[in-house]
């Protein structure tokens, strides 16, 4: 299982990758909203989610998930961490 810190690091790297370097991983803060602050679109967000799933070796369980509450880097990291169990 990955720690939250490791997951956050991976998410920042993925954001840099999908943004083709526009957003540098080293500048990303956990409170930043992926769509609003980092200016990724929904397709980029889905890419980050899918590649996180593959990296963690999990299938996200969508039951009861309120996606409106998973918007920042930190919130996404916590969500993915919880999905490991």
């Amino acid at each position: 299982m990955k720690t939250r810190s490791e997951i956050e690091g991976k998410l920042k790297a993925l954001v840099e990758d999908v943004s083709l370097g526009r957003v540098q991983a080293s500048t990303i803060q956990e409170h930043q909203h992926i769509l609003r602050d980092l200016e990724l679109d929904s397709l980029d967000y889905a890419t980050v989610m899918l590649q996180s799933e593959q990296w963690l070796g999990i299938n996200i369980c969508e039951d009861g998930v309120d996606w409106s509450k998973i918007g920042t880097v930190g919130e996404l990291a916590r969500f993915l961490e919880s999905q490991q169990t």
Partner: protein
Amino acid sequence: MILNKITPYNGRLEHRCRYAVRAGAGGEFQRECRAMWDYLRQACQGCVSLTIFPFEAKVDWKLADLMQAAPAERVSADATVVLHTSGTTGAPKPVSHLLGHVIERKRVGAPGGKWLLTFAPFRWAGVSVLLHVLKADAQVVIPHSLNPLDLVASAVENQVTHVSMTPSLFRKLQLASSPAELSQIPLQQISFGGEAATQSVLDMAQRLWQHARISHVYASTEFGDICSVSDGKAGIPEDRLSGTRYAFTSDGELQIEGKGTGDLWALRNGRHHFLGRREEVINVGGAKVSPLEVEEAARLVQGVSEVRAYPVANPLLGQVVGMDYCGSLGEADLRCALRQRLRKVAMPLVLRKLSELELTPAGKTGRVGVRV
């Protein structure tokens, strides 16, 4: 008329039972083809009612099951072929065609020729080829199996002049044989059907067989042959799908005589281009992506030999594009190459490299129900 009330057909019912059991018992391809050929020849000569069940039918079909499953059909002087649709988009359903009408609508060129059979005999495409051969007074060459190597060997050995195949099978033949070997087949007529023939498929076929007439056919089990195009271009000219018989819904589904076909089309530059079956077209957050668009882009990348694109369920966008491929190129390099060729929404978010991509029993690229 309900089948179990057709007492005059008791003798023929036994005949059908034997055929159904034989098909389900995994009989050899050639034996099945010869059986269908014999049935069709008899049907064209007299009143024989046929019921054909797919190869995947249960082996232990009993007479009572057949009577239950067969559709109510009015017995008429015309022979009737009852086919089951492939069932890839739901439970197989029976569809009937009157042989007399089908043969009358068939347009055949010069008589004669040797046709290679590349479709299973109990599918509409296979029956259509056999009926075409009958009308054209031609010969049918039945390969040992539908394996691409067997098809090429049979075509070369018998010097086949006519072939009807799916574009996916054509791509498999190119992987199985060299251009030099394929060019040895003295083809005069190539008909692509079952799937959309892309421009690259038409161009490649013309390069291999420079003197052949190349056409692509739009047909379905439900409606039979709908139209054939031989101008060397992908898509169907707009006027071929116009008139009172055809209509398109707002999202591009073709309707024929008021019935939906499940096929989505886009009109571009005066031609209808096939996007895919409704369940194959990928809806990425409201934007429609044709799997053919993704596949054609991937095939242009060196190091990719086979590819299929399909919808993958996604909680954020509804669906995203998934893609399986075969070849020497790594996933990261392929993603990089696709970024140059595809609009963003069409980029596969799920990418898998496989050792082989199998075709469906109908010789098509299967895109529905792909497990990721």
